[in-house]
């Protein structure tokens, strides 16, 4: 792959690598502005309470405190990342709905003073009964958390395609299983940060964000300002994984506090506050019923799910739809029913985390499928090959899938993992498992309803042609988009990568783009960049044709050399052609814009899950279980990905490593826990147990050839899809090793130990 290309398909080092390795790279929290204040938010100590009174007078009197704000000082406009449910205000007005809800904020000369001021704010609460479990929340008589969600039902979905009942009647075998997932949190290493300052009626916000556009849009909406008066930009971002896509209390508070004080205000979450802000993975409760033929062909599936949304919606409606929508993509079946209730509870609100909504359903489905394979006496890998979707097909819920090499991924994974020699043949305590996954390569529609293009890019070649700058709104959060988009720009232009610069994600200086979420940038921002680069190439060839007295069709340009295709030795440099263009016509600029065609069906919720292209991934893992303690050791893992054309193989495989790592953490150790009052009990990085270097096994990341016709150069996503197979892959490996099925995430040592104990007791009874 990539042999015909000059710049793409090559593992060039990331452009921000040296800055990050030497400590020069500045993140939002590293920035300082003259006269800057520090802001902090006062969080609710109660899970559910009525606010009777807020007295800020003592806090205001504290020397060094410059402003104290509550709901009285800010608009009461409700917001949320998705307009499906706007239910959050900058500060709570009459009620708090979880421990950590936003009540007030202060700005002071330093952090110590700000913390002291928070303690001086007196809030009178009338504590209300709270509910922390979605099933309890859905019971009659449960505490009512929002007026607008009777019975605490936030989202209810009932979709039916084909005829599932008939499929079950016709099936040789019908099986029902129940699985549950846990609440997890992205935990990027860089805590959220926001700095705001005003000049006249314009405000600038430096933010650690995944989308400068959505933040600008929501600030404008809530504060009633023109978008043009709000500049959102970022420096380096220390990881996101979905957690930095929602606007936070920091952003709104910093804007207001800096307006009142006339000074820059910097605000940071500490580690526990990050868990309060949350927007991490929903805990889902998943009942799956599937009917199959004797040969293992899936005839119909019924997914009946409940999810714990926590207190606010954000992107949660989309999470709920995603949970069911993407179940139809991997395997081809004609009958599907999806029922979902997203309940609100008095816990922090959930949202999108790597793989948005679907890693837990994939855990459930892939575990379920292993049971079905066992019932039928079919090899688990084989049943997946039997059902794997073929390219150029349409799912039962109207997603068009053009390139799709899941079958090839399965076959390759079988080969490189040594599956045939290992499955059922490993020594006691060892097991091997398989899981499949994949994701959208960009959501077909933006988070709010708009006819704006998905992405716009501009490339400006500097006057003498010695340098070119790419302007994009795509957001580099560590995944490598700046590097990959520059590679794409250089390739399209026929220009050397080393001479390119980038101005990205700045609503004033760069271009429009919805940002880093739904694995969209390589495909969507990439389309805009490719078109911009091709416009430059077009202008260069026309100008060179004039200079060489030929027609443009006789010319090509590669790596900064314009040449006659028939006589490559007859050439001009890109620089001299660009300079001539500049003298004759003005600045050499190319621009591109991308908007996908209309995608998906017309039923309610049809937009969620649509995408120009779908990735597919197979993971196989080998585990070793300590029978005495239940301890799980992941010995080795293999990932085979269908991610289309690869722009930068090194960065791509690094995404797979990280995705497997995060999936493994969620599989075995990670879970956000709460105490009896609904406060986060493990809101730190020692007790929220992310794997360390000692826990990580060797991972082999391989690819299958695939080019998607709807994508620039045929690219697809990788970063999220590779998290989605992991949980089931490990659960299935544990089952293979010990014959025990852990149906709830995380697959803790204790759960394995208990299951083994139960199994032994049952065996003893039988004997």
């Amino acid at each position, binding site marked *: 792959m990539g042999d015909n290309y000059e710049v793409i398909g090559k*593992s060039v*080092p*990331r452009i*921000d*690598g*040296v*800055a*990050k*390795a*030497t*400590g*020069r*790279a*500045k*993140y939002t*929290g*590293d920035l*300082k502005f003259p006269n800057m204040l520090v802001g902090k938010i006062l969080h609710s100590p109660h899970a559910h309470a009525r606010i009777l009174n807020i007295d800020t007078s003592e806090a205001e009197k504290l020397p060094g405190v410059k402003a104290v704000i509550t709901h009285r000082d800010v608009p009461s406009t409700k917001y949320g990342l998705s307009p499906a449910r706007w239910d959050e205000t900058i500060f709570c007005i009459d009620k708090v709905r979880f421990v950590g809800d936003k009540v007030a904020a202060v700005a002071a000369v330093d952090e110590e003073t700000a913390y002291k001021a928070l303690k001086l704010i007196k809030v009178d609460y009338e504590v209300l009964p709270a509910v922390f479990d979605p099933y309890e929340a859905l019971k009659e008589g449960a505490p009512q958390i929002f007026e607008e969600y009777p019975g605490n039902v936030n989202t209810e979905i009932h979709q039916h395609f084909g005829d599932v009942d008939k499929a079950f009647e016709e099936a040789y075998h019908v099986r029902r299983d129940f699985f549950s997932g846990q609440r997890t949190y*992205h*935990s*990027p*290493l*860089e*805590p959220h940060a926001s700095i705001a300052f005003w000049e006249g009626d314009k405000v600038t916000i430096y933010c650690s964000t995944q989308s400068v556009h959505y933040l600008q849009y929501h600030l404008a909406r809530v504060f009633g300002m023109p978008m043009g008066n709000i500049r959102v930009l970022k420096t*380096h*971002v*220390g*990881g996101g*994984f979905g957690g930095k896509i929602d606007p936070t209390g920091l952003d709104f508070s910093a804007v207001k506090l800096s307006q009142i004080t006339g000074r820059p205000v910097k605000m940071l979450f*500490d*580690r526990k506050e990050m868990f309060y802000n949350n927007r991490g993975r929903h805990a889902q409760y998943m009942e799956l019923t599937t009917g199959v033929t004797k040969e293992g062909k899936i005839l119909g599936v019924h997914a009946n799910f409940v999810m714990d949304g926590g207190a606010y919606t954000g992107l949660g409606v989309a999470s709920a739809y995603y949970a069911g929508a993407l179940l139809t993509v991997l395997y081809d079946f004609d009958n599907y029913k999806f029922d979902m209730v997203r309940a609100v509870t008095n816990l922090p609100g959930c949202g999108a985390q790597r793989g948005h909504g679907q890693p837990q359903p994939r855990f459930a489905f892939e575990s379920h499928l292993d049971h079905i394979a066992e019932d039928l006496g079919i090899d688990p890998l084989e049943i997946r090959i039997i059902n794997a979707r073929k390219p150029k097909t349409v799912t039962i819920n109207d997603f068009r899938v053009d390139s799709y090499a899941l079958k090839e991924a399965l076959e390759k994974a079988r080969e490189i993992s040594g599956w045939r020699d290992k499955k059922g043949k490993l020594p006691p305590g060892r097991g091997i498992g398989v899981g499949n996954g994949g994701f959208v390569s960009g959501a077909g529609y933006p988070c709010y309803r708009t006819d704006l293009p998905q992405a716009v890019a501009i490339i400006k070649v500097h006057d003498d042609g010695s340098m070119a700058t790419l302007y994009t709104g795509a957001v580099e*959060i*560590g*995944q*490598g988009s700046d590097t990959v988009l520059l590679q794409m720009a250089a390739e399209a232009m026929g220009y050397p990568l080393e001479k390119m610069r980038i101005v990205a994600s700045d609503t004033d200086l760069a271009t429009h783009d919805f940002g880093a979420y739904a694995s969209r940038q390589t495909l969507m921002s990439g389309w805009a960049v490719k078109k911009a680069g091709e416009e430059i190439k077009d202008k260069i060839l026309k100008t060179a044709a004039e200079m060489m007295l030929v027609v443009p069709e006789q010319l090509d340009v590669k790596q900064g050399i314009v040449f006659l295709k028939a006589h490559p030795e007859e050439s001009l440099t890109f620089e001299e052609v660009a300079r001539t263009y500049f003298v004759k016509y003005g600045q050499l600029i190319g621009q591109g814009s991308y908007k996908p065609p209309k995608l998906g069906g017309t039923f309610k919720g049809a937009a969620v899950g649509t995408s120009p292209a779908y990735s597919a991934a197979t993971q196989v893992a080998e585990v070793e279980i300590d029978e005495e303690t239940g301890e799980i050791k992941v010995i080795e893992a293999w990932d085979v990905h269908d991610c289309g054309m690869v722009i930068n193989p*090194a*960065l791509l*495989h*690094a995404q797979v*490593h*990280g995705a*497997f*790592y*995060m999936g493994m953490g969620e599989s075995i150790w990670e879970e956000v826990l709460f105490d009896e009052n609904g406060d986060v009990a493990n809101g*730190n*990085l*020692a007790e929220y147990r*992310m794997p*360390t*270097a*000692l826990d*990580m096994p*060797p*991972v082999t990341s391989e690819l299958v050839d695939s080019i998607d016709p709807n994508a620039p150069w045929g690219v697809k996503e990788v970063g999220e899809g590779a998290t989605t197979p992991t949980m089931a892959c490990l659960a299935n490996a544990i089952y293979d090793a010990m014959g025990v099925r852990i149906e709830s995430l995380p697959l803790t040592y204790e759960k394995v130990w208990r299951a083994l104990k139960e199994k032994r007791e049952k065996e003893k009874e039988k004997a």
Partner: protein
Amino acid sequence: MQKIEDHSGTKYYLITLKVNGDSYTRAVKANTLLVNVLREDLDLTGTKKGCELGDCGSCTVLLDGKPVNSCLILALEADGHEITTIEGLAQNDKPDKLQEAFVENAAIQCGYCTPGMIMSAKALLTRNPHPTEGEVREAIAGNLCRCTGYVNIVKAIMSAAEEQQ
């Protein structure tokens, strides 16, 4: 150590830190953390703050050559000691071998853990120039990375060690 009081009676201590070869004298409170002196007073923001609890390792610096979480060290405790931060590794703007190895091996994604990770690796390679992979993993087990799964980080450290030979 000289003690000073301001008008309100708050006590400050005059400390001298030798950071990346240069001496800096600052007045700090008894509870001031080393990480905050480095970041706020000396503008050495390459040392990151990820948790302020000693859990993540993002703030790792070398104190007399030993890796420490600078969020767990009081500035007072560092008085008179030699501190090396990520900014002190490059010589005349030439990055250290470890820094180069991190870039070349795609061991960096968001980069937030990178300075701390490199400092832990630097301490390892100084005391043990030819570590096994297990020793590398142990040496960086106190440095969390959320992006890379440590795969390329381990590879980078091993390759820097090989290059030293």
